């Protein structure tokens, strides 16, 4: 059955399907019916207009003003918020630059580590013949439990007298333990948070790879094996290229999280110790809500828009690179 959908309600003319009662019959909707249609579509349009279009443009406008969110009026400053964040202000630009550097490290390390761990894990799980359901459930647990409670639990594990230092001591590796805690040492805090981000991201990535592995025609891998390819060669030269699309999705999802997510940084360190784990998402939050009522909401909005542009560029580059290969 086919139906020609009217291009606009204003036309209000529809050709019914070629089968059934209305075959070949054209009718014009009555004014009342058009009104009903508008009435039922209106909530969705209002919702989109308010939640989508209005907030988008309001937020963009906010990035050009100086405001603390309280006064009835704001001060138009044009592009100054952007220039202050990027280079002009000795107060605002240094923390943004430091946060950008940390964000770049997270953007490089978190997606790559996620792929490096989840792909072999998916291969192993795909080969498992026993306890398949149990194993897949176990590896999926970090995803369904990730949240504030788990981050707080990680804090306990990572503190000076926490489980990791205790374990290292018990194994005779006390020299590797961190006397100030893994989040207290400025040199280990960011890498530790990246590891926890990877721990949270691996389950979904593994699931995506598993889904991909199960769509690969076994004949392809069997043919390679018959030709003498080793297990490593099969996976690297046959399976990995076939899963390139999934790898692109995983990289993109994790890049987006690394660029814009800040929940883990807010809860576990609040950017500390000092400023050593501050990232751009957290810096945006600080400018909006932690600046002691200073008129920095516009700066927060400007930083948010720069993050948006960066996210679009990263997504575009990522898609281009994976498509070209």
């Amino acid at each position: 059955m086919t139906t020609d959908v009217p291009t606009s309600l204003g036309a209000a003319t529809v050709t019914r399907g070629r089968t059934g009662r209305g075959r070949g019959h054209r009718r014009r909707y009555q004014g009342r019916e058009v009104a009903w249609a508008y009435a039922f579509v209106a909530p969705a349009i209002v919702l989109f207009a308010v939640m989508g279009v209005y907030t988008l443009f309001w937020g963009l406008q906010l990035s050009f003003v100086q405001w603390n969110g309280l006064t009835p009026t704001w001060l138009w400053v044009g592009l100054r918020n952007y220039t202050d964040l990027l280079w002009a202000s000795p107060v605002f630009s240094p923390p943004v630059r430091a946060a950008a550097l940390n964000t770049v490290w997270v953007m490089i390390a978190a997606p790559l580590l996620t792929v490096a761990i989840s792909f072999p894990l998916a291969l192993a799980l795909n080969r498992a013949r026993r306890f398949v359901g149990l194993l897949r459930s176990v590896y999926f647990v970090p995803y369904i439990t990730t949240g504030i409670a788990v981050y707080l639990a990680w804090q306990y594990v990572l503190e000076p007298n926490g489980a990791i230092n205790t374990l290292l001591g018990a194994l005779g590796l006390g020299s590797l333990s961190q006397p100030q805690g893994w989040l207290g040492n400025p040199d280990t805090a960011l890498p530790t948070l990246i590891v926890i981000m990877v721990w949270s991201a691996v389950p979904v990535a593994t699931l995506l790879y598993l889904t991909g592995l199960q769509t690969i025609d076994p004949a392809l891998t069997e043919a390679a094996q018959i030709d003498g390819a080793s297990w490593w060669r099969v996976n690297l030269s046959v399976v990995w290229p076939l899963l390139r699309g999934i790898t692109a999705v995983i990289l993109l999802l994790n890049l987006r999280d690394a660029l814009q997510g800040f929940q883990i940084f807010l809860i576990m360190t609040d950017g500390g110790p000092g400023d050593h784990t501050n990232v751009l998402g957290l810096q945006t939050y600080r400018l909006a809500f932690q600046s002691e009522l200073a008129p920095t909401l516009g700066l927060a909005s400007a930083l948010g828009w720069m993050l948006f542009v960066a996210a679009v560029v990263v997504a575009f580059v990522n898609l281009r690179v994976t498509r070209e290969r």
Partner: protein
Amino acid sequence: MNRYLPRSARTYLALATILALTGAVTGCGPGGGGDSGDGKNLTMWTFKQSHVAALQKAAESFKQKTGIGVTVEAITPDDAFIARTQAAAQTRSLPDVFEVHTNGDDFTFGAAGLLEDLTEEATWTDRYLPSVAAEGTVTERYFKQSQEKGAKSAGIKLNQRFSVPLTIGTFGIVYANKERLTAAGITESPKTWEDFVAALAAVQKARPQDGGLSIGFQAPTTGMEWLMQPMAYGKLGKAGFTGLFSNDPARNWTSANGRSVLDSYNQVTPYWMPGTQTLTIDDADLAFAQGRSSFVVGGTFTLAFLSQNGMNTENIVTFPVPSPKGGAVPELSLAPFALTGLSVSATTKNKDGAVKWLEHLAQTDVASQFAKDALDIPPVDLGGDPTGNLGPVLGAMIGSFGSGADAYNPGDTTHQPPSYDAAVVARSLMELTPLKKADVPTAAAGVQKIIDGYWSGK
């Protein structure tokens, strides 16, 4: 299913759907909490969870007296309180009464037109201690500060009053574990900074695992404002201290004075509790209450938290952060200032009722009861023997307050540049201690660069 409904029902259904969705997206639907009361009952927002029960108790006696009910809502942490207020300011759904940071939030909210000017209504201020009675009023100094470029309180007018005090107190109080201090051979409270460092060393030596000093460095201002600044005031005196925040290289952090203060502050570095740089203020207090540290630095408000978390208050020794030997103020004391105040929203439908509520909380018996319930210090003059009203610990703390030029007043921020954000400066200072990533000259230069930025107004 729709075709089985009568036409009128369909009409109503469509209208109800549209209204419900429109209401939901604009946030104007009924029942959105936090809006001004119904004209009879009042709503009040506070950012102090520990004040809720005490305020509710005071509200009971207020209702008996006036028939006006008060609903108290805590919104924590501070950033959530700010975000909620920002949203309510735009939708004009503010509560009737706010608890605010005195000489801070109240001036910013007042400048934005969110608060009533209480100059005429606050007729009971003679009940407050003279040193804090005027707090919440725009004095000459605060007015001048508001006119600087980038000031958060731009728009306030001289002599406007946007709040009356609710609690008073001060920062810069060291809490020490009495038993551990005694066991380490320290029988008297340290009188100088050097004595304090020696006490830290002695307890640390006796108890390497839990003998350290905790402070909630996840809020980086704690180390700077609660520990270093009182010491710096004692070392340099008022003029020298305020000069640190100037853009004059001969007086600011990069000067000999500034480096000398940082040298002294750096002396505590070996004695921090391991991991203190990751702790929140509550975590640091909790570490002390649970015996994982032997010292904690806080304010008068810290006592309530320690007590609520099981610390035996008889096992606590408190003393103000002491002045270094040879300092400009050898006997440093701490001046009380209004920590929090009460403000009336400009959108209240019951201004008279709100003002009566503020006056009720300033009555001696109500304030005393509030203080005992909240373990916080009231601004009301309780006479010569506060111990009788508030108990020995709170009473002793009140007795230790100082006044005059020898008393450090952390609430006086008029020497700071406009739009000064202490957290940004304090994060930089953490590179010196506890993180040990910068030496004194580097840390001084880092701090000064930020302060110069604030002075430049960029």
